[in-house]
């Protein structure tokens, strides 16, 4: 099967790769671009561990073909911190909002997308926004608190 030449932008960097038509964006990120921070937990869009944004839209990268990323702007967990951590990343550490940490990249990417749309969410809004991101370790309690604390800091209210 002939490969497809894909040109795209990942975390601000121009990249290109050859994708098998069956490969997902997740496969491409992990296997062609060595960006293994984005995780595969299910491959069926149920767990959210592979969350990235494409042109600003939160997607499960396991449900998108790599070829569909052509010409798009992809943001992954690797692009979240600048010289300093994003407030969400810092608050997740401070609140012990991760245990095994496997779901953490996807949850951080999803939470960042939430706060960009809604800087002052209620607990319930956070819970429904993150309902597509499974965490088996924490029971979500400390995750919700960390997102609230980060949101407060980003609003300048902390």
């Amino acid at each position: 099967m002939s490969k497809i030449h894909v040109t795209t932008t990942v975390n601000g960097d121009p990249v290109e790769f050859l994708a098998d038509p069956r490969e997902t964006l997740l496969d491409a990120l992990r296997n062609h671009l060595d960006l293994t921070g984005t995780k595969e937990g299910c491959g069926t869009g149920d767990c959210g561990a592979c969350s990235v944004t494409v042109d600003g839209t939160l997607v499960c990268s396991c449900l998108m073909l790599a070829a569909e990323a052509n010409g798009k702007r992809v943001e992954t967990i690797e692009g979240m911190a600048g010289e300093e951590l994003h407030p969400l990343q810092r608050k997740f550490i401070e609140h012990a909002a991760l245990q095994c940490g496997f779901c953490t990249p996807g949850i951080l990417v999803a939470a960042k997308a939430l706060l960009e749309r809604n800087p002052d969410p209620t607990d319930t809004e956070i819970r429904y926004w993150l309902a597509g991101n499974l965490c088996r370790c924490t029971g979500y309690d400390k995750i919700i608190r960390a997102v609230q604390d980060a949101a407060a800091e980003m609003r300048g209210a902390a």
Partner: protein
Amino acid sequence: MARDDVKTGYKLIGTRPNRPDGLDKVTGRARYGADFSLPGMLHAAVVRSPHAHARIVKIDASKALALDGVKAVVTRADLPTGLTGEELNLQDNTLAGEKALYDGHAVAAVAATSALLAQDAARLIEVEYEVLPHVTDVDAAMAPGAPVIREGVADYSVPEGMNGNVARYMEFGHGDVDAGFAAADIVREQTYKTEATHQGYIEPHACVAQMGEDGRGEMWVCTQGHWYIRRMCASVLGIEAAGLRVTPSEIGGGFGGKTTIFMEPLPLALSKKAGGRPVKLVMSRSEVLRATGPTASASMDVKLGMKTDGTITAGQVFFRMQGGAFPGMSPIGEALPCAFACYDIPALKHEAVEVIANRPKAAAYRAPGSPMAAFAVESLVDEMCRELKLDPIAVRLKNGAKNGSKSSYGPVYNVIGLQETLEAAKAHPNYAIPLGPNQGRGVASGFWFNHGGETSVSLAVGEDGTATVMIGTPDIGGSRASIGLMVAECLGIPYEDVRVNVVETGALGVNEPTHGSRATFASGKAAVESARQAIAEMCRRAAADWGIDAEAVEWKDGAAHPAGPNAGKHPPMTIGEIGSKMGSTGGPISGHHEVTAGGYGASFGTHVVDVEVDPETGRTTVLRYLVVQDAGTAIHPAYVEGQYQGGAAQGIGWALNEEYVYGTDGRLQNPIFLDYRIPVASDLPMIDTVIVEVPNPGHPYGVRGVGETGITPPLPAIASAIAGATGARIRSLPCSPPKVLAAIKAKG
């Protein structure tokens, strides 16, 4: 209570510093099982049985091997013969022998130059099956006339006349149960069932392995215990353990399910056949659910006698549990001792049978056996409390185990905290909140033995006065932070000056996995002993420098000090000064401790849950949830709370929603997360925690394991809360909306 609001003699223990692996984990840098790659690496795929029970007539891999880029295929014929017992079970589960024993049982594996090519090749491997009659339900597997799925599994303990699927029988007890029941005012007997659930770690099993023709190799794998992986792979492949070096990756959850092997020997065998090229194998989610360790399903009879004042006079249980198609995996040996562990009852009788069925080989799942047993016993206790209009906490306080009680399974409890958890639950504001219409409250207690186990730890002092600790228990939930706190406390240096590394099999003696709630307890205990050795050596170095006896030197605040007036006047010598000179004062300074750790101290907890049930749909909403559990000493309270909250969430999932659903064809009907639905964020409330601290005398800082007890009480507590809300008692988990609705309607 947690150290946050209590003054203790500790400087660091009880504080909540950032975990050392936090930065890697929030930036995507942490390397998990599937994140590792090697030059020249091949990718593997597994061919799995679509049948619950089938004879394997023929395997033809010729079409797969004819594809360019396909490098090796392995089947059972490639594995050594002559294994027995659990080693044979492990080999049988790695690759089916004469028969496939469950839907998803591995039959062959293939390695190719890409993952897609390996998957294509797997589809070209032709397997001819002769389908056989199957059985998947525990009670059906025991029934007369049920197909016997493997001959000769029954051990000496099984009474004559039982179905051939019964592999093991056990019984024990004490006192006169007949007299106990006769002395009761009411005697009640019920049957309870729990379905199999999966640990549900979000990271699928993954490894990269390499093995040469000399049978020596290396493996990088997500596991709770890399020495177990090494031993099991060596057994299954007939190689020497020392020839295999296993390095654990970061682990994306385990909960018991990553304490054993499922597919790890396959990439080793494929690598050897492919000329020693490394091979990566990553499971899909459906492979995880179909073919890796779910927990046992259970069918349980319970009988209890109670006086009208709540005194329990006698108890009796008969548990039937299936742990898949292999004997030894059903946790009857844990479930029975856990059944009445929270109580001090004068007469008890325990019986159980282990049954095999056409399901995947079960693995440990957080307090294996205890949640099922608690569902049965705690549900019936609650039913009788409601019948006699007694407060469920008062009844547990009256009958509960205390310091010095002889446990239901034999040993005498030393210092335990059950009563304290009950008192704290009773005093918590949640227990007094008035309930509205369609709302109910449930209470249950839970138990786990805790565990010590084989433990080997080393510590090395750095030239700059920092300390590196080498442990062999993979860190799943923050144990590096806890162990770092204990070592820093002991050495009297900042937490940031201690680095705790989880090291590979070549670097330490044998360590059991992170299981049984043992990592912070046992590796922590050995790390403290290692630090004490290093301190003793540092005191000797200071004494030599000062020209005094080592006994005249004491260690405090990270430095050697002359002890007492006769030691002379010397300024304190810090760990940094000692470390910087150690090359010229006698060489590197380290400590090492290895032990099969005892004194682990039993764990008890009490949960209170409020639910609301929608009478139109039967859907249950958890309104509020309280976990009270004894931690001994909470080293890092945030991660203790995390264990409580995570355990409760898993128990809530088991109680309300999770179950393995098998079709009449014996195939798993829900092998993806969409259909095997674990709790999501919008399903749960905040989970309130109270950390009770009854220090464990068996640990230098009083630690008890905290990982497992929390999954145990939610099953009965939620069923009891639903009974309170609806008047309908669900005795078969999960309490799914259709089941609850039917129970409400049946009640009329």
